[in-house]
């Protein structure tokens, strides 16, 4: 069959099955939205999504699925087997919240909040699982569907995660990276998920383009504490060192090429302990993003030079721990086309905006890492208001955020694995992965480094 024809209805069997699936999801829509809101009410940050994970496990088990739990601490995998053997399609949802204490849905104690809409992904995944669990629908599949619920997509709380890394509980600092390492995706042939978005145009969906790669830096300045009033001459001010580095980084910006889509930003996670003591130790968390890991390299080199200059300026020393971050998202063209076709089929023409392959989203996702080893798509459901990661990011339209993604992903799975999984096989055959999973893991391992500079 031809993918260029906008005609996913070529197979009558798929068409009937799809109609049943869409009815099933429509019938479950209130429950799906309620599930998303339940997750919203229990925001937990990455690798700590214990309550959320337990809830998701129970819901999937209620559908009769066998759930493997505790993957990368809180991750899960439930495989739904079709009637005949064939490729495995992963439908992914992310468990974790951000940390935005001023968000209206924030946890009063931890400040965790679903300011990135991951809770809607859980609702959508339930929708797909609910529809595909209907026996006559499941029987139409030649192949399997793996529901993979991933921890820790937000690349935050680096110190806590490094502690987990030190204790051997994790090696990589994001959920999908860690699950790739653990082999969770070894029997998966392709993956899809839908992320919510705000202000991404009027159409319900948006697909295409890429995302930035990134790298993280844990920067520790070691100065010398002293009484800030009584004996500042005896101190070495680690905060001044970090502030100098920040100013120096800003001075590099004129050397960044727009085409590299460079983003350099950081926070001071420990800026001193008491105002009357010269800060003797300061922690800075830095991040460098650009369109690819290769484009990041010269930029990161400049940024690390700035960290060193801060230490040199003040006579401090600095330890720079480099943490392997995400890779640029590469959307699979066949999966993307199928997703577009099914969106238009279900929601009508003009219901999805397709952006150019090279258009870079300034942000980053570990779906990028997955897309480097298998066909993947990461469309957006335009359903939120406010600013992503901001205190005002709220899902306004749960039909768009939960129900519509469930329908389109389900229809896409049916098309991939129906008709003898002809399209799924074609997708796998045509895809050229950048790395194998093993190559990816060793490459990521090499990106972790720790260097000390000074004392100057």
């Amino acid at each position, binding site marked *: 069959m031809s993918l260029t024809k906008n005609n996913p209805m070529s197979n009558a069997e798929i068409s009937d099955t799809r109609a049943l699936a869409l009815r099933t999801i429509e019938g479950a829509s209130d429950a799906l939205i309620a599930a998303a809101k339940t997750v919203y009410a229990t925001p937990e940050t990455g690798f700590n999504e214990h309550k959320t994970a337990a809830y998701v496990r129970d819901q999937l088990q209620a559908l009769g699925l066998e759930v493997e739990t505790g993957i990368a601490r809180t991750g899960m995998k439930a495989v739904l087997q079709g009637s005949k053997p064939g490729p495995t399609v992963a439908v992914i949802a992310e468990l974790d919240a951000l940390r935005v204490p001023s968000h209206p849905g924030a946890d009063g104690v931890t400040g965790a909040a679903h300011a990135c809409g991951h809770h809607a992904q859980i609702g959508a995944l339930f929708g797909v699982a609910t529809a595909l669990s209907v026996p006559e629908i499941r029987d139409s599949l030649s192949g399997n569907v793996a529901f993979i619920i991933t921890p820790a997509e937000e690349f935050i709380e680096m110190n806590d995660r490094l502690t987990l890394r030190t204790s051997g509980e994790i090696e990589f600092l994001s959920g999908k990276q860690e699950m790739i390492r653990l082999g969770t995706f070894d029997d998966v042939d392709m993956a899809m998920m839908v992320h919510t978005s705000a202000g991404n145009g009027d159409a319900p969906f948006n697909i295409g383009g890429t995302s930035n790669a990134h790298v993280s830096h844990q920067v520790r300045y070691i100065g010398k504490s002293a009484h*800030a009033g009584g004996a*500042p*001459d005896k*101190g070495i*001010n680690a905060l*001044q060192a970090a*502030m*100098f*580095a920040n*100013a*120096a980084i800003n*001075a*590099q910006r*004129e*050397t*960044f*090429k727009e085409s590299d889509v460079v983003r350099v930003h950081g926070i001071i996670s420990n800026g001193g302990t008491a105002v009357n003591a*010269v800060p003797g130790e300061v922690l800075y968390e830095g991040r460098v993003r650009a369109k690819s890991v290769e484009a990041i390299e010269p930029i990161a080199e*400049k940024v690390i*030079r*700035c960290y*060193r*200059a*801060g230490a*040199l*300026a*003040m*006579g401090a020393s600095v330890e720079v721990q480099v943490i392997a971050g995400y890779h640029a998202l590469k959307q699979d063209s066949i999966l993307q086309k199928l997703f577009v076709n099914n969106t238009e089929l279900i929601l009508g023409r003009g219901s999805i905006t397709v952006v150019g392959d090279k258009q870079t989203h300034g942000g980053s996702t570990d779906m990028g890492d997955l897309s480097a080893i298998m066909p993947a798509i990461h469309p957006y459901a335009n359903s939120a208001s406010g600013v992503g990661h901001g205190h005002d990011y709220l899902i306004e339209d749960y039909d768009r955020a939960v129900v519509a993604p469930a329908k389109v992903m389900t229809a896409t799975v049916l098309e991939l694995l129906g008709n003898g999984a002809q399209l799924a096989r074609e997708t796998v055959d045509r895809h050229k992965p950048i790395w194998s999973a093993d190559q990816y893991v060793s490459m990521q391992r090499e990106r972790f480094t720790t260097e000390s500079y000074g004392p*100057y």
Partner: protein
Amino acid sequence: MVDRADLKSSFSSAVNSRADELERIARDILVHPESGYREVRTSKLVADWFKTNGLEVQTGIAKTGVIATLDTGKPGPHVAVMGELDSLIVPGHAHADPETSAAHACGHHAQIGSMLTVASGLLEASVKKELVGKVSFMAVPAEEYIELEYRETLLANGEIEFFGGKQEFIKLGFFDDVDIAMLTHTGGETPGTLGIGGSNNGMIGKTIQYIGKAAHAGGSPHLGVNALNAAHLALAAIHAQRETFRDADTVRVHPIITKGGAAVNSVPADVRMETYVRASNVPAILNASDKIDRALRAGALATGASVRIQTNPGYLPAKYDEALTEIYRNNASTLVGDDNVITLNHSTGCTDVGDVSQIIATIQPTANATSGNGHGIDYLVDDYDIAVLKAGKAMGLTVIDLLTGDGATGNKIAGAFKASMTISEYLERMRSFRSDVTYEE
């Protein structure tokens, strides 16, 4: 033997009879300002005056310096009375040279006046015959530590080794047999007073060059290395050191950018700075200097530029002799009254009188006679009676105390003075401050 009081009275009468001439000379120098190591006209004026007044004169010392010695032929202490020849460069000053912008915005013209005042009184025959020892009148070039590029040229040509005139005088041996030195600077404290005591910061000087890489600032800034950003960051880093400077050390670091780029549409690739590092004591100067060097290197490292730091010896901190101060104070009181002799505080400015003060007993009183900000466009000597005549008289009367009665007072002060270092140690130390290092990070 003539009574010392009568002698002082003769000294003062002699000065008073030449008051107009002395003030006129100071005003003449005011309107013919010349900056350091360029004081050709001023030097000739001083030399001619001493020749006219019967003293043998040595000229061309450290380019423009002049020394005229009154040698009594009798054994006794050797006192140096100094005046500085040079002006500043202050465009916009009321008496600035229209071409060079040289201007006496630090009152050195009055110093020449006060030095000649001392000579006028001591050369009076009735005074001169009662003195023992020697008095050297030293008109010294280049007290202001400016025009570093010009002075570096002189250094390269072997015309000078140090940027301060008194430093050159020390090096050339003119202080080898001097026991006591004095110079009166103008000051802006309560008008009509004479100040004494205090101390001064010392300093070192630095010239800095950042080498980056030029590129089109609009078209391809990613290919450039911005030397101005390096300098800008270094300035921020220098400021970040300030909290580590101890109050007691009165550290001053105040850089300027002498070249900040060639064209606004080109990434600056050659940026120059100058700075002083001042403090009240040499260890504090060296400590701050290390921090400044580190901050300068950090600017280079941050941007990927290289930096050349040339450090030149500046001036040593000044410490004034207490016994000599008391003798001066008594004489000043007879001129302006006890209440109008004030004790000076530590000054954070620097002078090469400081170098002299480390090796021989020295005072640098002030004659408070000015308005406006020192080194500013509005700095003017308002009262020439204080700045030239009373300033000169107070020094002259002090010389009389030192060089009469077989020079016992002078000898006592010279004998009690504890030098921080010998002249050869001084030279060695000053030379050790010099360095020229390029850092490629």
